[in-house]
C-alpha cells in the first residue's frame, strides 16, 4: 500500500504542471459558458491539491486508491452564485460542458434530513476528453459559501466535541441563511417578472399603466423619448448632441408629481414646442455647437413649471431637484423668469 501511495505521489509531482494548465483552461471554459448564457456568478475559484494535502489523504484513506486517476479532487473548481436557482443553472451548464460521473457526484442539498440544517452544496465529479484525470466542480450560493467557511472556521466538523448549545446555534444559523437565500431568490424571480411586465407595457405603448420607478424609467429611456426634441434643438445651431445618462431625471419627474410613464409621455407631447422656444431663445443666437442629451428633458421641465405657474419658486425647486440644493439655483430661476416674459408660449 505504501508503494502505491508513493507511486501516486510520484505521478502527482510529474503531472502537477498539467493540472495547473488544465485548471486555467477549466476556469476559462466556465467563464465563457456563463457569459454566453448571460449568467452572472459571484466567483469562480479553483485550486490544485497541495502535495501535503494529498500525502495526508493517502495516509488516512490510502487503501482506497491505486493510482492518481482514482483520486477525484486533485483539481477542484468552485462556482459561487448569487441565487439558489443559479446553482441549478450552473449545474446544467457544467453537465453540457463536461461528462459527469454521477456515481461519485453528490447533491448535498438533498442529503440533509428534513429537520436539520447545515452544509448545502452540489458537487460534481467531472471529466473531459482532453484531460486524463477527473476533477471536482462544487456549486453553491454566496450564503452557502459563507456558511461553509464559518462552519470550517469554528471547527464544527473537526471531530473535536463541541457543546450541543453551540451546535444548535450553528444549526440555527444555517437555517436562517437557507431562509435568506430562498427569499433573495424569490425577490430576484419576482423582480425579473416585474421587469418583463414593465417592458411589455412600455413596448405596447400602455404607458399610463406603468408606475414611474427605476426599472420602468430605464425601459422608457430605451425608447429615446427626448430624441426628437434634442435633434430639433441641435439642428438650430448645427450642434452635436452628447449622450449623457438621464437617470437623475427620475427624481426630478417624481419630485414634479409625475406618477407614471404616461405623465412623461404627455409632457413630451404637450410641452415640446414650449421647450423648443426656450432653447431657441437661449442658444439660437449663440455659436454654441454642442448640447447634452439632458437639454431636452431640462427644457421640458422648465416649460412645464412656467406654464403651470410655478414661477421663480417652482423653477428653483426644479433645479434643486436636478442639481442639489444651492443658492445659485435661485439666480438661474431669476434669469429664467426674466426670459419667460419674452417667450411666445407664456404670452398665449
Amino acid at each position, binding site marked *: 500500500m505504501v508503494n502505491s501511495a508513493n507511486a501516486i505521489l510520484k505521478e502527482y509531482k510529474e503531472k502537477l504542471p498539467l493540472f495547473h494548465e488544465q485548471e486555467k483552461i477549466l476556469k476559462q471554459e466556465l467563464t465563457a459558458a456563463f457569459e454566453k448564457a448571460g449568467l452572472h456568478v459571484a466567483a469562480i475559484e479553483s485550486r490544485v491539491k497541495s502535495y501535503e494535502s494529498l500525502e495526508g489523504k493517502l495516509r488516512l484513506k490510502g487503501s482506497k486508491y491505486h493510482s492518481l486517476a482514482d483520486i477525484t479532487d486533485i483539481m477542484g473548481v468552485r462556482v459561487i452564485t448569487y441565487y439558489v436557482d443559479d446553482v441549478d443553472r450552473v449545474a446544467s451548464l457544467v453537465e453540457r460542458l463536461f461528462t459527469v460521473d454521477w456515481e461519485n457526484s453528490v447533491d448535498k442539498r438533498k442529503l440533509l434530513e428534513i429537520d436539520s440544517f447545515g452544509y448545502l452544496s452540489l458537487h460534481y465529479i467531472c471529466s473531459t476528453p482532453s484531460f486524463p484525470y477527473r476533477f471536482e466542480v462544487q456549486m453553491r450560493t454566496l450564503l452557502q459559501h459563507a456558511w461553509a467557511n464559518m462552519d470550517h472556521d469554528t471547527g464544527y466538523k473537526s471531530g473535536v466535541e463541541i457543546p450541543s448549545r453551540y451546535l444548535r446555534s450553528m444549526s440555527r444559523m444555517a437555517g436562517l441563511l437557507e431562509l435568506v437565500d430562498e427569499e433573495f431568490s424569490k425577490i430576484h424571480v419576482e423582480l425579473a417578472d416585474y421587469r418583463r411586465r414593465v417592458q411589455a407595457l412600455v413596448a405596447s405603448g400602455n404607458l399610463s399603466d406603468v408606475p414611474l420607478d427605476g426599472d420602468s424609467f430605464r425601459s422608457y429611456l430605451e425608447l429615446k423619448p427626448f430624441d426628437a426634441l434634442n435633434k430639433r434643438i441641435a439642428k438650430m445651431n448645427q450642434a452635436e448632441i452628447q449622450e449623457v445618462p438621464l437617470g437623475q431625471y427620475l427624481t426630478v419627474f417624481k419630485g414634479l408629481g409625475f406618477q407614471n410613464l404616461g405623465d412623461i409621455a404627455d409632457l413630451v407631447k404637450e410641452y415640446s414646442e414650449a421647450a423648443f422656444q426656450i432653447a431657441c431663445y437661449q442658444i439660437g443666437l449663440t455659436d454654441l455647437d454642442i448640447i447634452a442629451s439632458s437639454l431636452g428633458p431640462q427644457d421640458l421641465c422648465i416649460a412645464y413649471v412656467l406654464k403651470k405657474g410655478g414661477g421663480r419658486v417652482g423653477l428653483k425647486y426644479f433645479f434643486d431637484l436636478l442639481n442639489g440644493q444651492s443658492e*445659485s439655483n435661485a439666480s438661474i430661476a431669476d434669469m429664467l423668469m426674466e426670459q419667460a416674459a419674452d417667450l411666445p408660449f407664456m404670452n398665449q
Partner: protein
Amino acid sequence: MEAKILENNAVITVELIGRLDTAAAQEVSEKLLPLQEKADRTIVLDCSQLNYISSSGLRIFLALRKASAVKGGKVIVKSINDDIRTVFMMTGFLNLFEIEA
C-alpha cells in the same frame, strides 16, 4: 489663456485663467489630456478666474467627465461665474458636474 495643474495626493486642481475660447481650447485640451489617465482621482476645475467658455471648452470639460466616469473618479467644477453657469444651463451641462461655490 492659462491652465495650471496642481497635484496633491488624491486631488488634482486645474486653475483655468482667462478665456477658454476656440483658439485657446486646443492648447488647454493637450495640456489636460494626461489627466484623463488620472481620472480615478478627484479633479477640481477651478474656474474662479475663467471668464468665458466656448463649445470647445465644454468639450474639454466633458472629456474629463467621461474619463472620470470610466475610472471611478469625479470632476468638480469650482467657482464658475454667472455667465459660465448660464452657458452650462443652456446646453444641458449643468447637472453633469458637481458644482462648488
